[in-house]
């Protein structure tokens, strides 16, 4: 029983990082109908910005984190401004956006390799105590911090989308960008701000990742897992992405804990295909027939 609880805690902690990245995928997908595969690299760059600020420039930790999140938001914005917007204006099909994103992802990974080298870096730990022992069940302090921060960030995101005027614009563009444009919504501006939001979340995820694990040029590959999570949840749905992420985290730990750690990815991918077959648009997906 203790082992099961321990595994569930681990699963939620893994899932919470996935959730931050997955919600970024979902946000962008809901507006532009494409999977922004450079998202994981935005997360990596945010972590490096934070690392540079805190260890090289000796800035206070909180400021470094803010800089990391801001940096990721700016990079995400630049991706949109320089690359994606032009492709959209060219009138190219959506899949070109995806290919451009893959190109950006390769570029950023290798850029990071050239600038910082492939050595693993660590962000300093905030707490001196690594874990708290609850009667044989260990809960990491960094995990709790990350979980709390993820929850706060995601609640704020959901509030922005569902309650604010800007959120209304986002939902309008997601529904039909043409109609929204005719009704006076500045589409490019909405998209740009959404990219910044998604980037900020990715930056936060990157920093958490750096606190829990390491920072290295290919750490953005975690974005793949997050992408899968957002597909499970239903592309374009932010709550779906969050649910999908936690679910994927739980599936991974339970499979490696109780079935086979070697076959973990195999089983989680099979499960993914199964979910898609039963619910072809993901758990919370809407209107895929029209969006595809």
């Amino acid at each position: 029983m203790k082992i099961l609880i321990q595994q569930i805690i681990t699963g939620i902690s893994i899932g919470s990082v996935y959730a931050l990245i997955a919600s970024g995928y979902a946000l962008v997908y809901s507006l532009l109908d494409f999977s922004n595969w450079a998202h994981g690299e935005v997360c990596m760059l945010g972590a490096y910005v934070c690392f540079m600020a805190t260890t090289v420039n000796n800035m206070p930790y909180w400021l470094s984190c803010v800089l990391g999140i801001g940096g990721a938001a700016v990079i995400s914005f630049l991706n949109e401004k320089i690359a994606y917007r032009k492709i959209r204006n060219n009138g190219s099909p959506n899949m070109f956006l995806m290919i451009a994103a893959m190109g950006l992802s390769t570029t950023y990974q290798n850029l990071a390799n050239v600038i910082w080298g492939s050595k693993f870096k660590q962000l300093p730990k905030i707490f001196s105590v690594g874990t708290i022992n609850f009667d044989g069940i260990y809960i990491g302090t960094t995990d709790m911090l990350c979980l709390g921060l993820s929850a706060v960030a995601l609640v704020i995101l959901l509030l922005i989308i569902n309650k604010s005027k800007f959120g209304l614009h986002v939902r309008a563009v997601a529904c039909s960008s043409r109609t929204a444009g005719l009704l006076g919504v500045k589409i490019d501006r909405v998209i740009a701000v959404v990219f910044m939001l998604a980037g900020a979340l990715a930056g936060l995820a990157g920093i958490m990742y750096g606190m829990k694990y390491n920072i290295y040029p290919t750490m953005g590959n975690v974005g793949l897992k997050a992408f899968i999570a957002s597909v499970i949840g239903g592309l374009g749905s932010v709550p779906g992405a969050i649910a999908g992420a936690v679910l994927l985290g739980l599936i991974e730990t339970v499979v490696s804990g109780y079935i086979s750690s070697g076959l973990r990815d195999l089983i989680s991918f099979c499960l993914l295909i199964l979910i898609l077959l039963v619910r072809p648009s993901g758990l919370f997906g809407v209107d895929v027939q029209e969006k595809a």
Partner: protein
Amino acid sequence: MKKRVLTVTAAAALTLALGCGAFAQDLDTENPIKIGYVGALSGDTALWGQAGLNGMELTAKQINEEGGILGREVQIIGLDGKGAPDDSVTAYKKLVEEEGVCAVVGTNFSSCNIAIAAVADELEVPVIATAASNDQVTVDSDGNLHPYSFRLCFIDSYMGYLAGTYAYDELGLKTCAVIEDITDSYSTSVGDYMVQTFTDLGGELVASEEAQNGDNDFRAQLTKIAAAQPDVVFIPWNYENVCLIAQQARELGITSVFFGADGWDTTELIDLSNGALEGCYYVSRPGFNLPDAAAYGEVYQKEYNVALESECLYGNDGVQWIKQAIEAAGSDDPKAIRDQLEATDSFDGLLGHMSVDPETHNPSRDAAIFEVKDNEVQYVGIYDPESK
């Protein structure tokens, strides 16, 4: 920097003093001896590839300052193999066919070297693997020797044997667990040999877990290991992952001894592990602990402004070994070099003394045990279970 300027000035003055320059005349730069290097110079393992190349270039520079090999200048040509078998084969072919190298050093991946081995036998230019430790690098799966493949490192089975024996015999541990990287041949084969040796001696395997390259969270597997309460956990991974695994294991309350192999051998082990490896052991060849290597490390640090990696020492030893073979053969003919490499009965490099078994082309060299103690890597001593 000042020191270098001084040396250069001194060298220039000396050259002037000797009229037309003793160095320049002695060193034949028209007809250099070319040594190739294949390694991952791009991608996420570029760190070691670059380190190996830097090590070779530094050594070549030192050799050239001392008059080169057979009076000829040594040139190092490094090509990117991306750590992938296909790219490494292409890089090897390019070195041989287009650059005309007489021998190739690299790679540090077994999969790349297994692919290169068959090609090397055809193109007949020897290749010296650095850290490619799979048994099949020099002898294929049917037991036939690859005549043109050599290596500097231990083979997986020997490292596994040493680790298993040391843990059982010397440390007196009785139960073991292992966590392997299922996508990495080094990890799976060293891990399997560790466990096999340990259980053959009478130990018990209580948990066997797998993970994948690219994973960062091992807690699901470690929770199971924690429940099995082993005396020792074998972690045959590269050091970054070792540090993550060890920290997460300690966080889950695992107090066992961790045991590893030469993937742990780096100057960064302590910084990255945050104390989680205290009281743990690994088996490797002597290296950083040797005075020659330390002196080389200082020069290296000055030259490249990065810390010394074990791959640099491999690079150095590769070049020095080829130099010894060329000097013994009296020519840089690849076949003559191969014969001399095979006949090597004594070579002293920065990684210690070695000789070559002509049957398998595997080096026979001293193995050393290291312990992490008081927050530093301490050299325990040479270990040879046969001599007891």
